[in-house]
């Protein structure tokens, strides 16, 4: 995802000299081409996320489209008040780009796990939170963000995420991208964890249960019409590589509550019972309850309860 993002941004930046890329001294081997080709549109600020984010906001106030790139918690939690006051309050169109969503940096430890970022940034006014599912969505969403001039949080995975869309998804603000259609319920997800959702769909199909699977990239702008239809069809399970507290699951529950919808919703998200546990992304997803068995168990339980 990060390579697709940088490649797409470079293409856009060649056409639009107002696009600026700032990094907090991260992106070894990833940002080199951009930095070499467009040095006037690139800045390595150094290891100083708070000053960097204030700088980015001031830079954006001069009419530039500023992208700030770093790992997980660094361009988000470390400089939260700069995002709140200098970006959101001032409505400066800075795009905060994080790499390493969820457990992508699994073996690097909890400091590198991004598990509370959606909750925290989603709470900010004027902030659009966008989470791509695969490289195809990353490409289309990067183009969308360039044209959608407002404060944005773009939460990327890392590298080598499989393509799960069969065709390039049509991007519109708030639109949910359905990957497969079923008749008895829905699995909603945000991010590269979509592969787990698709594997769960297969498992459910083997038990004779047909569900839709859909990516929800616009976490802070939920499509209520889609939700309404989904809840009429059957249970909805929301799957994310993030804490239970405040992520996509919470966003969906808030939307359901605001629209006074009826239906069954289950959440599959990170337990965070052992913060210091080391392991790769798949291992940590599994041990934290983000797995096929959990999705299937929760779906069947809700389905039984509806009978």
């Amino acid at each position, binding site marked *: 995802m990060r390579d697709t993002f940088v490649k797409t941004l470079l293409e856009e930046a060649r056409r639009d000299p107002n696009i*600026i890329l700032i990094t907090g001294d991260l992106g070894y081997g990833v940002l080199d081409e951009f930095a070499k080709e467009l040095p*006037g549109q690139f*800045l390595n*600020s*150094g290891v*100083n996320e*708070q*000053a*960097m*984010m*204030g*700088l*980015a*906001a*001031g*830079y*954006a*106030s*001069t009419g*530039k489209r500023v992208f700030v790139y770093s790992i997980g918690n660094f361009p988000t939690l470390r400089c939260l*008040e*700069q995002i709140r*006051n*200098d970006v959101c*309050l*001032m409505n400066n169109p800075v795009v905060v780009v994080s790499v390493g969503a969820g457990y992508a940096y699994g073996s690097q430890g909890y400091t590198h796990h991004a598990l509370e970022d959606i909750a925290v940034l989603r709470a900010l006014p004027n902030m659009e939170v966008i989470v791509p599912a695969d490289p195809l969505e990353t490409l289309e969403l990067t183009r969308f963000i360039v044209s959608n001039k407002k404060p944005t949080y773009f939460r990327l995975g890392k590298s080598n995420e499989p393509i799960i869309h069969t065709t390039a998804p049509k991007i519109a603000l708030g639109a949910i991208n359905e990957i497969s259609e079923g008749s008895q319920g829905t699995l909603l997800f945000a991010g590269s964890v979509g592969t787990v959702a698709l594997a769960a769909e297969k498992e459910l199909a083997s038990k004779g249960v047909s569900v839709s699977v859909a990516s929800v990239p616009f976490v802070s702008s939920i499509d209520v019409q889609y939700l309404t239809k989904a809840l009429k069809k059957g249970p909805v399970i929301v799957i994310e590589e993030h804490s239970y507290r405040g992520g996509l699951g919470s966003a969906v529950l808030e939307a359901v509550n605001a629209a006074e919808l009826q239906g069954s919703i289950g959440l599959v998200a990170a337990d965070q019972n052992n913060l210091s546990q080391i392991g790769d992304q798949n291992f940590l997803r599994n041990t934290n309850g983000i797995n096929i068995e959990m999705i299937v168990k929760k779906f069947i339980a809700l389905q039984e309860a509806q009978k």
Partner: protein
Amino acid sequence: MPQSKAPYSDAAELALAARHEIISMTSVAKASHVASALSVIDVLSVLYTGSANISVSNMDNPDRDIVILSKGHSASALYSVLALQGFFSKDWLAQYCSNDAPLGGHVTSKGVPGVELSTGSLGHGLPYGLGIAMSRKKHGAKGRVFVVMSDGECDEGTTWESAMIANHHNLDNLVVIVDRNKIQSLTFTEDTLKLEPFADKWTAFGWQTETVDGHNYSILAKSLASQKGPKCIIADTTKGKGVDFMENSVLWHYKSPSSDDVTKAFDQLSENY
């Protein structure tokens, strides 16, 4: 109160008129930070009478100068200056901090002509100004950026992060003016977290540094007139300057002037200026 001469071209006259406004508005609003405003008002008055290329008529010029008041609790000082220079109606000052009024107790930019950045949490103005200066330097726009900070604010890490970045990129269009009144929220700066040797710190970070009398209009104007690389002007000031019972007192960081205090303060301004 002195008669309005808006727009003012003389910093001393602007500062005196603004001192009256600051004392009135913090009294009527029962607001804090009158002494912080009185300590920085001379710096702002110099900036807004020609040292910074900024006026009501050039606000849409992308090459004009930018002034950011990072010590947002001195809002009454900036608002007074802007109103007196015609950026918005002086009527707004009378409604300071009241319900649904345009002007609040910390600097707000929303709907307030002349204000570049909403501030109030310390340590935000310098990185923001740094971003504007960086953009201008990288993309060939003219105009300097002046960031007015408090000395207590220099406890914030973003100050020194920004100092490094500005030096590394030789931002010769960025000026920091520190209102060195030597008092912060709870007590004196040197009893809280030592800043001294303060000028040496800025110099060591690669900034052209000058320490000047922060209440002397001509000296301030001279220091603001030129720079080599990023420049830090340490404006040696007295908190509460101009009203003896407010001067050098931690109490007046918070206390709001009573109507008796206002009368006494105005008498002193007549005597002192």
